[in-house]
């Protein structure tokens, strides 16, 4: 552009004030007649609903809650930006290109934005449907595609395969074979992403949780009958516990603790056989088909086991599963056979901290003289809006000191399989979390979701030391005397 084209103010005024537009630049603000790419847009039934998309008035109040925006500081990696891309696809201004997919896949699906959204955009839902569209068009990013095939579809839904794999893994870790493999340099022959995954494999040190009986009987049924006669003869309530997929293998001790804490609080705990993975990770990856299949299996299993009868609730110690199970109604809303049972199932689902905090809790008497800090799991705080019950439970433990960390509701970067699909960004998000944890001076981190436990524990241990991140029920169990 020649200098002569810089207009003097006088010219501007005389020329009716036309803004200086270089002649060779197309007018990009004008609506392009053609879409920005030739890729197809949203198709079929499983698409983000227009009504959901247009609830977003792009006010921007979500920005500061978003871990990826806070880290990367670009609008493309913000909730508002991702919704704008969905709107653009919906309006036919762009198709689902790999570039657009990359921004959607950068999302942790932590739903922090949803919790602060003033107009109530159901962000989790529209992101899940967008991911479903990505999957349907075969446009998942490489890492996600690999993990989706190898793990989310081939392993998670199959309890026996998982258990077999876990045994192999434990053998690999304990027998010394791992040391051999790592020393041999064999890992260098694998693609970098697979070698990275090897390093991220969870340490299987604890016992597995394999329910030994269909129902664990209440240890101390409510001793004194309630004052009002009406409920005096109430039978001991039975609750159903989700054992799910990987939690009994990776955090078997926590599952055992959950059973003990529930039975101590006067519940018969059923772990209905035939149940399995809740399907949350499949749903987040956009695999609605598998997610729906797994949902139907759990609905059948728990309803047949008596859920809904005589106060039989469905309890989970995993925030991610609970959030998903509370949304089975939405997932199966178009399924003529399952829509109604799914809604019923969702209404019966409670997180274990929510359930216990609502009870007249059997007071824990053992002292746990420890300074702890609590990490809010995203799917508990944001998706289920449960933040006080876990804190109340912790504060009921004699001797325990709860110190709040800064930004306790900010994601730790675990986010299901995110640490594997987006390792670099997950690492940055984790680093911020670890700094906040360290600033508290707490001796232990407590949370209420298996994924967060793993991610934070790995982060702490990578920095040296042998930390154990605990679940709220682990500490309650400790205070009850195990």
């Amino acid at each position, binding site marked *: 552009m020649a200098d002569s084209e810089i207009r003097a103010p006088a010219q501007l005024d005389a020329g009716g*004030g036309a803004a200086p537009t270089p002649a060779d630049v197309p007018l*990009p*603000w004008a609506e392009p007649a053609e879409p*920005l790419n030739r890729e197809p847009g949203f198709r079929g039934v499983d698409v983000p609903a227009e009504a959901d998309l247009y609830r977003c008035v792009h*006010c*921007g*109040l979500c920005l*500061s809650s978003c871990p990826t925006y806070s880290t990367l500081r670009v*609008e493309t990696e913000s909730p508002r930006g991702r919704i704008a891309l969905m709107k653009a696809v919906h309006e036919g201004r762009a198709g689902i290109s790999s570039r657009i997919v990359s921004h959607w896949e950068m999302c942790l699906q932590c739903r922090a934005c949803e919790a602060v959204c*003033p107009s109530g955009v159901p962000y989790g839902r529209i992101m899940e449907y967008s991911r479903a569209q990505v999957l349907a068009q075969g446009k998942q990013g490489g890492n996600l595609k690999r993990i989706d095939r190898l793990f989310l579809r081939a392993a998670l839904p199959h309890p026996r395969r998982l258990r077999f794999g876990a045994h192999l893994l434990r053998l690999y870790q304990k027998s010394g074979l791992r040391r051999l493999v790592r020393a041999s340099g064999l890992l260098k022959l694998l693609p970098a992403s697979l070698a990275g995954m090897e390093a991220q494999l969870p340490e299987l040190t604890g016992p597995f949780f394999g329910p030994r009986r269909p129902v664990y009987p209440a240890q101390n049924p409510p001793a004194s009958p309630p004052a009002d006669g009406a409920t005096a003869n109430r039978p001991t309530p039975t609750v159903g516990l989700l054992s799910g997929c990987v939690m009994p293998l990776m955090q078997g001790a926590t599952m055992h603790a959950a059973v003990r804490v529930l039975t101590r609080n006067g519940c018969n705990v059923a772990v209905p056989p035939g149940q399995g993975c809740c399907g949350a990770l499949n749903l987040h990856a956009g695999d609605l088909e598998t997610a729906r299949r797994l949902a139907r299996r759990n609905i059948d299993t728990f309803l047949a086991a008596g859920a809904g009868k005589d106060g039989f609730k469905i309890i989970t110690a995993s925030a991610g599963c609970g959030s998903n199970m509370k949304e089975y109604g939405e997932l199966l809303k178009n399924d003529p056979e399952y829509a109604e049972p799914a809604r019923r199932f969702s209404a019966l689902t409670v997180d274990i901290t929510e359930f216990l905090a609502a009870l007249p809790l059997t007071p824990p008497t053992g002292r746990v003289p420890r300074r702890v800090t609590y990490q809010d799991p995203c799917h508990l705080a944001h998706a289920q809006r449960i933040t006080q019950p876990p804190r109340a439970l912790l504060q009921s433990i004699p001797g325990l000191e709860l110190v709040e960390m800064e930004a306790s509701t900010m994601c730790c970067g675990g986010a299901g399989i995110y640490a594997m699909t987006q390792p670099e960004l997950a690492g940055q998000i984790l680093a911020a979390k670890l700094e906040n944890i360290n600033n508290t001076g707490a001796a232990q981190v407590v949370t209420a979701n298996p994924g967060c436990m793993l991610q934070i524990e790995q982060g702490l241990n990578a920095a040296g030391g042998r930390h154990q991140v605990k679940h709220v029920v682990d500490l309650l169990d400790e205070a009850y005397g195990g």
Partner: protein
Amino acid sequence: MQRQGFIDRLKAIVGDDYVIAHPEDLLVYEYDGSVDRAMPRAVVLPASAGEVSRTLALAYQEGVPVVGRGSGTGLSGGALAPPGGIQIAFTRMNRILEVDTENRTATIEPGVINLDLDNHVRKFGMRYAPDPSSQKACSLGGNIAENAGGPHCLAYGATTNHVLALEVALEDGTMVNLGGPAREVPGYDLRGVFVGSEGTFGIATQITVRLLPLPETVKTFLGIFPDIESACSAVSAVIGHGIVPAALEMIDALSIRAVQQVTDAGYPEDAGAVLLIELEGLWEEVDEVSREVESALWETGAGEVRVAEEDRERERLWLGRKTAFGAFGAIAPNYYLVDGVVPRTRLSQVLRKVSEVSEKYGIIIANVFHAGDGNLHPCMLFDGREPGVTERAMAGAAELMEYCVAVGGTLSGEHGIGLEKKQFMPLVFTDADLAVMRRTRDAFAPANRLNPGKIFPDDDGFYQIVPQPTPPPGDTGMYV
């Protein structure tokens, strides 16, 4: 070819990762919080004043217009890219450089978020007073461009009262300093004229703001009224008692319901209107004044008065107010905010006009506003996908703005003129008034390369959704 060359040279200044130029990525930089959109040619994310200056110099040389962008929360289209222009986004320049507790000032980069600054200085027993409702997202740079207000500006004044010094990059990249750490500086008050210039004079790269000590006592009242008229008379009664509350906000029935649908702020859903009144100061003073406020509320027909003294309760009451605009998304996908200011005594008259306009044009209008300083925010809620409805909403907005001016008010209290309200400037300014403004801009930016097409009604080059208003009712030069 040339386009690629320009982008490459931008990348050479800030680094490859910090120039966004792919059209699909630019889809997320074409909006702010307003109803318009405009796709930039590229977005540059500098990390330092030097990079800002070099970016401006390059753009100047290439004849490319530039606008600064903070968080994109503005409601007048101020941060939208001019035709063919680039945005300089300040999201990476978000460091708090210094807090001087002795002199009560803070020096920051323009991308610092308003609430982050306030939270940071609260650790030292101080506060940054201007608190726009978008404060948890909006940046200080944007606040300065728009001279942002907020509920507490009733007592403490808008952004301009809190800015001491600015480091500014001019359109050709020249760096200048405006104002200084002292309250008064010799010569023209260029800092004063810069604040609120909507990005047309220069781009701030470093900001020194004034901080205030935290008040000893804060007390917040929620006055619940059966209808909006009685709430308006309560506003007059409170002010009539000679009380200047720290904040005095009104929320009408429709907004109450919108807010309560998503966020439980504790507003009763059957109320006709609520007033949010905050008192601050020494304990004795607040105690005395709060009795007067309470009696003023009861006398004017409040059905209930709630008092919040604990932080948690106050935060809950304010959360409703501060998320109200966003909550309108639950009613309709688009809103157009009329930012008119009227004399306080005319509030109920103007609100009657608002309901007339709502009926006449068939547009839902919600009212949530700074009642204390007469800064109305009738918000036209509509669905832009419905043919013709946007035009109807704009025509209604035009009629409202004309009315605000006719009763002795003006166009904008705190959100700026930008794109959306420039057509209405002749309602309050004569040609001579506007010419003085334009010459002032020319003193800073003679080539009009910064955010062109905004503020002045005859600066074209932008698509506009705002229809022409009827000519102004007589010439008044009193606003210059």
